[in-house]
């Protein structure tokens, strides 16, 4: 979805881009079990898991996603500005 919004990529191209960036296959990025582990390991946020102290969610997860996908996320950029870290 982020690649569609920010880069206007169509679904096939967007899936390939994300798979390449994450070093996964197309099958893996569509697999909930694989992606749950990837999201947990890389701090991308676990939408529907019981949260624990170390789990990322919300803004911190978006920092990680922006970095991994090599894109700018507007809310992250504005957050940095407001927090004085940019």
């Amino acid at each position: 979805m982020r690649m569609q919004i920010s880069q206007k990529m169509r679904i096939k191209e967007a899936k390939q881009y994300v798979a390449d960036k994450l070093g996964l296959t197309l099958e893996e990025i569509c697999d909930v079990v694989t992606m749950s582990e990837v999201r947990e390991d890389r701090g991308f946020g676990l939408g529907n898991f019981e949260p624990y102290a170390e789990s990322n969610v919300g803004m911190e997860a978006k920092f990680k996603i922006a970095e991994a996908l090599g894109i700018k996320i507007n809310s992250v950029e504005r957050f940095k500005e407001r927090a004085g870290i940019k």
Partner: protein
Amino acid sequence: MTDSKKYFTRMGDGSIVYMTEEEIRADILAGVKDAADRGKIPPLTQDEMDHIYSIVTMPGGVVGVEPSRAIVTSNDSGSDKISTKCGIPVERSVNAMIHERVLGADSVDIGLEDYNYKTVKGVAKREAAVLKNALNKTTMPLFYGAMPNLGFYTKPDGPVDNWAVLLPEGKIKEALAAQEEAVEHAVKDIVYVAEQMYDVGADGFQLDTSGAAGDADFLVSLLATEIIKEKFPDMGVEIGMAGEFVLGMHGRLKYRDVKLAGLYPHQQVKLVEQAGASIFGAVVNTNCNMTFPWNIARVCTFLKACSEVATIPVHANVGMGVCGIPMCENLPSEIVSRADRCLIEICNLDGL
């Protein structure tokens, strides 16, 4: 061989109807022809029509695509659904989290219950604060969304004369001038709201139900998108349509030398691309008096043509009364899932 077995399906208003193979195939063909004729676009192939038939008659309550064909979802008036529509008093950032963590949505929009930019303008900074709060708590992309709804700029609710009154009275010149004036007001309001939303970090800006008040309404979305994308290239814009063709309430308005009235989805998407939008939300009306096979075949014909020429993602609006979904409040999942599967497999859409 055609047998006399009757399959369960529905009419466009949701009523149950049982049809034979022959009847279903005839309706699919008629739906395809109607779209091809109106849109002046190629009809679906026999294989594609056979595929629609197999999806329509497939056993099971809910059908789905292969996991590798899964696509994403965007939303319009999403933040309204749990609170206003379901009557559960949830704050909008909580609503966004429910969409993300319970409903498995890929994105949602924050919007005011009085879902139009003219109203939002007056409370834009407050609305932006709600969005900012939601953006801090959620991981998925969030839009701010509302309708351009040019009708709200007419008297007594707005500053310009009401063309829906002037036109039937034969006051053409006045009606055209009123629409042109309303466009200026609406573009200004939308751009102002977009500025506030960009400032708090919106991922996207949703111009929903564009063209609801006719060609002038669609022009507003195109002009506003152009300005927004120039000012804030990092924020995506989704233009979602109101109907399958742009209604000619003015009839002479153009965008980049293209007359807007009468454009169908495959033509609309090219202008949406030129304006700089990231996603095109396509709409084909559901005809309540026709069957689901007729409606979905018609929808697929229009949206296949649209998807083929698009260079930006195309999301089909699969809500109540559009894109094959029946016109009823509680949607039957067996029809919704069949419509979705047809749209993904025949039209190669990017989202719903």
